[in-house]
């Protein structure tokens, strides 16, 4: 049995407290009126980086104003509008962006850690359904990580409900003005999608996904614990069937979840392989976290049955899924870049113009770095190498989620500062706390799993 060291608990709590302070500070420093925005911009001078000053222009895309939504408008953010009255509209636009920022930061961090737990759950189900012989010694580690799923689900659902009740405006399409033909802000494109993108259906879908995933997590964990005391393989067989069923449910709901929770930030944009793309990022992060937690526990002497071949296999998965992620990223990017259709290319134009460093930086972190570091067979067995690559991969995939959400909600007013770092710290602390507490609740070896003996002797 594993018991959580009190130092680790303290470590997690410190992160949560510091993070919570950062989050609160983020909300407090967000401006509440255009006057404050003017003051802030004046005192900041050049502001942060290349995109400040007059280059702001007006991108009506998410300001909700005007009907010029054919994408061409948004493509040319440097088109200066007629200056009379454009000034105030501009400040109001920036105000909305700055007010969205702490919410987006919270949402990104919340989703990032949630998707790790969900990815681990999917990986766990795959291991069961494939009857993998190498991984059963890691099942309890995976189960421990998925213990974050219920917690993360509740928080993310609360965030979605808050958006639905207009506490924040990160989901632009939730504004009822946009679908009201009488309104000045009427948006025919969003109105056309309102059969799918409407608040009640959105929340019902979210509830279905979350309940489905959590039910699988609950029953697979229960069956796995029961198998330890069983006389036969009844619970294992149940888990096998459950996992196969879950995987079908998962791939459908995961895809829809990515449209709902991420793609709908840009309600004018659509991409068919988006669900796969989010899935690939989720899997890399999940496998990275599995190997990092396994290495941490092993270094403390709790997983003596995990040998370096298991780590080697996990590192191979990290390597392979990093390439898979890049393949999907590039497929999405290149197809849109190549055809250059205005209605879809705006997505990348805003990202390349306003998010150049995070957009291309994450490519280095998520592709070039892991490919070069994890290509060598020997390096995949060196723990600190796996940890080092893992940290870069996780940071890279945080930035990936950042790039998917931020451009649509805060546009060019982005910065990685207090609210962003605070949110990441808070959810990191929570994640560590929940995961390691769950690890202490059951023995770290699933003793009566029919493949556990093979797994213990796994050697590559």
């Amino acid at each position, binding site marked *: 049995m594993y018991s959580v060291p009190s130092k680790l608990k303290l470590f997690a709590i410190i992160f949560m407290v510091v993070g919570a302070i950062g989050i609160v500070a983020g909300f407090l420093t967000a401006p509440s009126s255009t006057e404050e925005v003017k003051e802030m911009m004046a005192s900041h001078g050049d502001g942060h980086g290349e995109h400040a000053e007059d280059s702001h222009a007006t991108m009506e895309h998410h300001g909700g104003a005007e009907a010029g939504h054919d994408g061409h408008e948004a493509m040319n953010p440097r088109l200066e509008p007629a200056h009379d009255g454009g000034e105030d509209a501009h400040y109001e636009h920036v105000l909305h962006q700055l007010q969205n920022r702490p919410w987006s930061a919270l949402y990104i961090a919340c989703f990032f850690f949630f998707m790790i737990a969900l990815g681990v759950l999917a990986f766990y189900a795959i291991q069961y359904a494939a009857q993998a012989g190498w991984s059963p010694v890691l099942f309890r580690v995976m189960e421990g990580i998925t213990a974050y799923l219920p917690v993360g689900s509740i928080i993310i659902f609360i965030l979605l409900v808050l958006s639905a009740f207009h506490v924040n405006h990160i989901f632009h399409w939730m504004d009822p003005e946009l679908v009201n033909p009488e309104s000045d802000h009427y948006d025919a494109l969003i109105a056309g999608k309102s059969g799918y993108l409407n608040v009640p259906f959105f929340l019902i879908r979210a509830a279905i996904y979350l309940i489905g995933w959590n039910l699988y997590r609950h029953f697979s964990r229960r069956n796995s614990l029961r198998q330890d005391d069983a006389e036969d393989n009844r619970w294992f067989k149940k888990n096998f069937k459950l996992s196969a069923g879950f995987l079908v449910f998962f791939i459908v709901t995961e895809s829809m979840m990515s449209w709902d929770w991420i793609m709908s930030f840009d309600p004018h944009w659509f991409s068919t392989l988006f669900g796969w793309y989010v899935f690939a990022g989720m899997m890399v992060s999940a496998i990275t976290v599995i190997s990092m937690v396994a290495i941490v526990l092993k270094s403390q002497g709790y997983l003596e049955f995990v040998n370096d071949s298991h780590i080697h296999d996990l590192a191979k998965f990290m390597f392979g899924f990093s390439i898979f992620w890049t393949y999907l990223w*590039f497929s999405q*990017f*290149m197809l849109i*870049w*190549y055809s*250059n259709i205005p209605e879809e290319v705006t997505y990348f134009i805003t990202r390349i113009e306003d998010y150049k460093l995070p957009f291309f930086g994450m490519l280095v972190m998520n592709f070039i770095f892991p490919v070069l570091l994890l*290509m060598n*067979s020997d390096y995949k067995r060196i723990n600190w190498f796996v940890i080092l690559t893992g940290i870069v991969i996780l940071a890279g995939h945080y930035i990936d989620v950042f790039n998917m959400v931020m451009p649509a909600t805060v546009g060019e007013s982005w910065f990685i500062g207090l609210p962003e770092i605070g949110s990441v710290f808070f959810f990191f602390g929570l994640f560590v706390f929940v995961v390691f507490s769950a690890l202490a609740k059951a023995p770290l070896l699933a003793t009566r799993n029919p493949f556990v003996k093979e797994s213990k002797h796994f050697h590559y």
Partner: protein
Amino acid sequence: MASKTLHAIYTDDDILMQAVKDVRAEHYHIEEVYTPFPVHGLDKAMGLPYTRIAITSFLYGLVGLSVAIVMMNFIMIEDWPQDIGGKPSFSYLENMPAFVPIMFELTVFFAAHLMVITFYMRSKLWPFKKAENPDPRTTDDHFLMVVDAGRNDVKKVADFLTNTGALEIKLVENNDDH
């Protein structure tokens, strides 16, 4: 000068593995082992060095990548930068996404083919090559270990090999000078 080798035949890969370990423990020199299929762990038991073919493959891949980049940079950007369907041909980087499929394929092509050719050359395989198999049964269900008798007493080595489970032992004298 004639060298004496002993050809010991085994019929089971587990016994062969144990025999290899025993022979090495006695410090007899194993010249070669012929098996009908890959025996997992045999290279480790024989103490063979690791293959470096993966490293060559990586380097060949880099060559392929460079070939792709240099080729397309010359053709599409330097030699005749046309406007083809509005694609920016002002610099390589600007038009790079369009080149990536070719960069990828040429990397794989060079890495794979040159590695295979390296493998053929290093293991001396080519069409019409004369088979070096000392006993045709080793391609079916027998395993053959060639042990150099050196300056040891042949009888003693042969007895030792019999004890390791060899079914047949044959003394071979090589007079050729290779």
